[in-house]
């Protein structure tokens, strides 16, 4: 086993935790909403408030660090299209997820637990979920770029 193979394993594992976890978290959210039970939606909001910083954020950092090590060990050029797109995409998605969505979801979960559900909070959750889904699509687009490696 070479260092490159090891970093590739770490990189793909981190991507699986981040993106695959994000997809299934979305499904859990949709099921909670479909149940029509405000307590389940509130619990989901709280769960996401802790899963974001404790699971998704470390996973995204693992993806970034192992990706950088792959470029170094694999003798890839930093100006390669897929490397540039990967770094820009990582920054956009990470800052949107961890700088905004996770915190906002945590706040909504807290408010639902104390104030109870309301149309205003429901609309806020819907908006955040939509944004999270768009970010997951961006992540899959990045996976596509990483696999196809356009320009190489």
């Amino acid at each position, binding site marked *: *086993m070479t260092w490159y*193979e*090891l970093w*590739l*394993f770490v990189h*793909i*594992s981190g*991507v*699986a*935790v*981040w*993106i*695959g*976890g*994000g*997809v*299934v*978290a979305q*499904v*859990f959210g949709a*099921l909670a909403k479909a*149940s029509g*039970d405000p307590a*389940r939606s509130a*619990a989901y909001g709280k*769960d996401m408030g*802790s*899963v974001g910083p404790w*699971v998704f954020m470390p996973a995204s950092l693992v993806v970034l660090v192992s990706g950088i090590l792959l470029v170094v060990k694999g003798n890839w050029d930093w100006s390669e299209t897929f490397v540039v797109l990967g770094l820009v995409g990582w920054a956009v998605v990470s800052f949107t997820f961890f700088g905004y969505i996770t915190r906002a979801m945590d706040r909504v979960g807290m408010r639902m637990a104390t104030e109870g559900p309301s149309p205003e909070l429901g609309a806020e959750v819907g908006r955040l979920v939509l944004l999270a889904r768009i970010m997951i699509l961006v992540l*899959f687009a990045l*996976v*596509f770029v990483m*696999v*196809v*490696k*356009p320009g190489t």
Partner: protein
Amino acid sequence: MTWYSFLLFVHVSMAIIWIGGGLMMQLFGVRAAMSDDPSRMAALGEDIEWIANRVFIPASLLAFLSGVLLVVESDFYGFGDDWIVIALVLYATTFLAGLLFLGPESGRIGKLTAEGSPQAGPRTMRLIMLSRLDLVLLFLIVYDMTVKPDFGDAGSYIWGVVAAAIAVGIIYWRYRVALVRGGSPRAATG
């Protein structure tokens, strides 16, 4: 874009959903168990059954199908390659475990929890332990796919098997500790 790179994208995407989703189910399970709320555990059991049938089984089948097509399409890989044989055996094990036991058992436990059955706690703990072992198997497949060892490459095998054995040992030890602590799902999260 070549047909091969498209298939590779599908293969990687489906594997990502399958493995990352499996881990996320564990985390939601831990959170639900920590809440000590039987209704939440019951809802989670039903959600997991729903997700297993509509997300994991299709994702794992697509990962398998695209993997087979990748080997067919490739000029340099064959079904006799050691790492492909290993992957197929591991895949069959985890797919059948999910299809025949983990998914249906999750649904059964959801119903037992809703009925307040005393069997629900120990069976939930057993399910948590088995699904964690299944997750170790999935990460072992990722390791096999990225390192692509052959049977003569003892070093790669030892690393993979040792890491998996440590993970299995920790999972089983935590399960035994949780049983001693009282056998509630909450104990399994401690």
